């Protein structure tokens, strides 16, 4: 299942709609790091509200996406991790080290806007 990526002003928003297979994740990674520069985006939001499970591969891929996007000159924020998912993740020792997280899409947007304003 492909993840739709929308452009919203200077930001890219990827909304995960359902559980993702490993293949989907690799595909998402490739799509994001390509589009972040072609669309001249400053920030990327990955919305995982619909993901009710986050395994080690998914979380590692999300971390990688964040690092790669950083190398491509933009910021990443992951939003919408569900409380139950967060609890399960920390129990498995998955903490998305070094990745910025926020409650939901609105929070993520305001974080990036603030950062963008203060940079400008």
């Amino acid at each position, binding site marked *: 299942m492909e993840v739709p990526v929308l452009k919203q002003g200077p930001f890219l928003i990827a909304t995960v709609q359902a559980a993702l297979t490993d293949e989907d994740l690799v595909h998402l990674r490739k799509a994001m790091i390509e589009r972040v520069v072609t669309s001249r985006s400053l920030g990327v939001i990955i919305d995982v509200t619909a993901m009710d499970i986050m395994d080690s591969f998914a979380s590692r891929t999300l971390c990688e996406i964040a690092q790669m996007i950083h190398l491509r000159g933009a910021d990443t924020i992951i939003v919408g991790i569900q409380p139950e998912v967060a609890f399960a993740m920390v129990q498995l020792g998955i903490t998305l080290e070094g990745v910025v*997280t*926020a*409650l939901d899409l609105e929070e993520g947007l305001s974080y990036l806007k603030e950062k963008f304003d203060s940079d400008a």
Partner: protein
Amino acid sequence: MTKRETVWRETLVRDAAPDGTAVLLRELIAHLRQNQSQLREEWARRITEARLLTAMSNDELFAEATAVYDQYVEALETGTLEALQAYARSLSERIIPRGVETHEVVGIVLLLRDVLARSLFEKYQADFTKLDRILDAYEPAANRIANTVAVGFVQERERVIRQQQEAIRELSTPVLQVRERLLILPIIGVIDPQRARQLTEQLLRGIRTNRAKVVVIDITGVAAMDATVANHLVQTVEASRLLGATVIVTGLSPEIAQTLVTIGVDLGKMNTVGDLQGGIEQAERLLGYKVVPLDAGS
């Protein structure tokens, strides 16, 4: 005689008994009904004498004694314990909140058994064989009844205790909003793994419903902390971060600080402030609040 034959003979004897027992029980019940007021009074007197059920007034005690007595005789008569069981449960419901203890309930049931046995002894003392048979019929039934009442009471008590535990657990982990997007979670008492888990779940739910950005966890009221609990705390902090909230931990006592460093729990990633006031002040700074006295300008 083979073992099997013995068993068979015993079964036969037991099966033959009910007729005789039934007749004796009927006689017994007639006796208990005839002398009921006298026996009830005797029972109530013995209860007062033994200082049981002191939580109840004499009138109440007598009313309950009457009801229990009637149920008791009825249970003897019908041989079914349902009515008595139901009564024992409702009685327990009424007396548990008044602090009646298990030994009192068991005590009064055994007293009734004693009072009745004595009265039977008095009545049949001239005829020992009959007394023997009457007691044979009476005692198993009386034991079953005593058992039912005591078990009913204990079960009811356990139910109350379970309910209270539930309530305490709910109460013990309040997640409070002190400002827009700022939650505090005061933890008091002992944290066991189960409570730690519940605490984390409640906090995460609170973060989502209140859209919190900063959470202050105050552990001033926690006396001791071991590695397991400390790791739970670290997990709580990390899970909150995944939801986009910053956690500030306040009120680590000197003892806890010493233990944590000695056992080598890594709390380096944790944001700690000395006391709750400092924690709230820092949270306000993070959220961009500035608290000033009203007359600061004048």
